[in-house]
């Protein structure tokens, strides 16, 4: 083979070898940069309707490991005291007057608006998605994610992640047919005292024109939690963790 061709091949190989990124490891790093393995946080969800009307929900959330999430509604008064629990693919809703948990699905929404239960009770991305490929998108990496099974809310995600201290800046949620159903935008990087992550997540959907929802994080901090907190028996007592 002639030397010029060898040089061309060598030059072409350099970016390819430099770009042999372990996508799965990168996704796990994204998960850890977003949240510690076990933590508590307060969140506010603001749903904005096309006419400008706002509805706000304040929640207390605890999460452990990859797929255990529990949440307590603090306001408004009509929802106060309700709790939700997620264990892997299982989700439940507890309403104090009803007095017992009932199963709910990831595609429903306990708060209405653009966020659904899968977005609100989100688990580690690496628990639900595998990385198909990673693209160099300039200042960011673009991860192409595929759901690990059919129970996951979205069939595919396109996740833009900063190269330095990997965190998502945008996620597009896509159906199996390739239809964009939702875009999540991560903003306002904030130091919560040991955890530096986006404090704001905004979302909109081409399927819900004119509707926008925003999730704001506050008081995110690591916290040791027992597995028993993430059981049906603990759902009526979640307020004792505050």
């Amino acid at each position: 083979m002639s030397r010029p061709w060898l040089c061309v091949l060598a030059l072409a190989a350099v970016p390819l070898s430099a770009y042999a990124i372990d996508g799965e490891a990168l996704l796990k790093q994204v998960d850890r940069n977003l949240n510690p393995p076990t933590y508590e946080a307060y969140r506010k969800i603001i749903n904005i309707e096309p006419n400008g009307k706002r509805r706000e929900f304040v929640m207390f959330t605890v999460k452990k490991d990859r797929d255990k999430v529990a949440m307590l509604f603090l306001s408004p008064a009509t929802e106060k005291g309700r709790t939700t629990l997620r264990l892997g693919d299982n989700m439940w809703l507890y309403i104090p007057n009803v007095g017992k948990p009932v199963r709910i699905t990831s595609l429903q929404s306990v708060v209405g608006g653009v966020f659904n239960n899968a977005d609100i009770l989100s688990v580690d991305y690496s628990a639900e998605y595998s990385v198909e490929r990673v693209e160099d998108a300039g200042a960011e990496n673009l991860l192409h994610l595929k759901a690990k099974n059919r129970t996951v809310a979205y069939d595919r995600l396109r996740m833009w992640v900063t190269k330095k201290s990997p965190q998502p800046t945008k996620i597009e949620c896509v159906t199996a047919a390739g239809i964009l159903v939702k875009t999540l935008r991560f903003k306002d990087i904030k130091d919560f005292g040991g955890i530096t992550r986006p404090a704001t997540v905004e979302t909109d959907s081409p399927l819900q024109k004119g509707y926008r929802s925003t999730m704001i994080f506050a008081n995110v901090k690591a916290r040791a939690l027992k597995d028993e907190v993430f059981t049906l028996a603990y759902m009526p007592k979640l307020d004792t963790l505050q």
Partner: protein
Amino acid sequence: MRRLLSLAAVLLLSPSFVGAQEEATFDLSEIRKEPTTIGGYLEVRPGIYAPDRNAPYYWLRTFGHNPASPLLQWDSALQLDVKHQAGGTTLFSRTNSNLRHEYRGWSTDTRFYEAYASVRPTQKLTLDMGKKSLRWGKGYAWNPAAFLDRAKDPEDPELALEGITFVGAEYTSAAGGAVKALTVSPLVAPVFSGINDRLGSAGRPLYGLKLYSLVHDTDLDLIAISGGGRGDRYGADFSRNLTPSLEVHGEWGRDTRASRPIVDAAGSVRTAGGSTDAYLMGVRFITPQEITVIAEYYRNNAGYSPAEMRDFFDFTSASRATFEATGDRTAMDRALDLAEGAYGRANAGRSYLYVRASRPDAFGVTQLTPAVMLTMNLDDRTFTLTQEATYKPEGRLELRGQLSILSGARSSDFGAKANDLRADLRVRWFL
């Protein structure tokens, strides 16, 4: 220039523009936790009823009165929840106060639905003492395994219920593997006059045990009740998602010493007893149009067949005729007693179907949830059909309108009810 300024003013002041520019903030004072919290709601519920004056239950319920038609009724209620938490101890009370105005005049009732102390020595163990609502069972409209709970109103199954008085514990272990969680809940309930006396004989306590487990993504409960001077009772239930949008559940209960009175058309009463089962199978699914459908089949072998119910209604009519002709109340009093007991239950028959369909944020209106419910006695094909709309215009207010139509021959389950049509508007203000 003036036109441009006017246009700018219109744009700047339009709701969509104002909403878009309003900053999303989170005031941490919103999340300050107080040791004592007060919740609950204040409710008013005016209702109008179209009575069937020849229906057996109309006569049984209004005996001695001559109400106007249509019937107007005004209900108001205050449910007050007070909770105090200190360390691992919680004190909770829920009182329910009702004020009603109807053809009988004014009436009022206040009672503690719940009042208990709960101590948590660890996150695995909770000890409860006092009056508390258990809400066992997985069924939505009926709960054949909820032996200790008060009967739900199938047309409003999400209402709070008055609890029972007991001492109990709850121990939970969240081991890994196939069994993701296990909860053991034993309890002892005393029975005295005025305390749990509907559950058994005075001086004979009740013992209960519930075992819950989450096994292979399936909720499973096993229930056993003994004591109270009654036969032992056993129950089980399960709930599982078959697909992300389809849930299936079931519930079974057995009373080893059930008894019920059966009256013939002549008024002779015998008691049928023995071990009887009741069970329920149901599904909950969500359609691609985001309509949630709950469908349940309920079978109660201790319920009344259509022929047995007809005999009761025939006896009621005959006792009324006797009273009106002779003034003799003997048969009529027996009919009234039976109507207060097993014959007067909301669903006294054997086989029922319940279907509820609802859709949140319907017609592009956020927080508007219309629903339609059907409860049908499958033996005599009579039913009640309810249309409902719930709206939460703001964070503390909930409005709900219901319109129910009952259908059936006069000597049938739903045809014998006091009203052919009911309509009410419930306004709740959450505290």
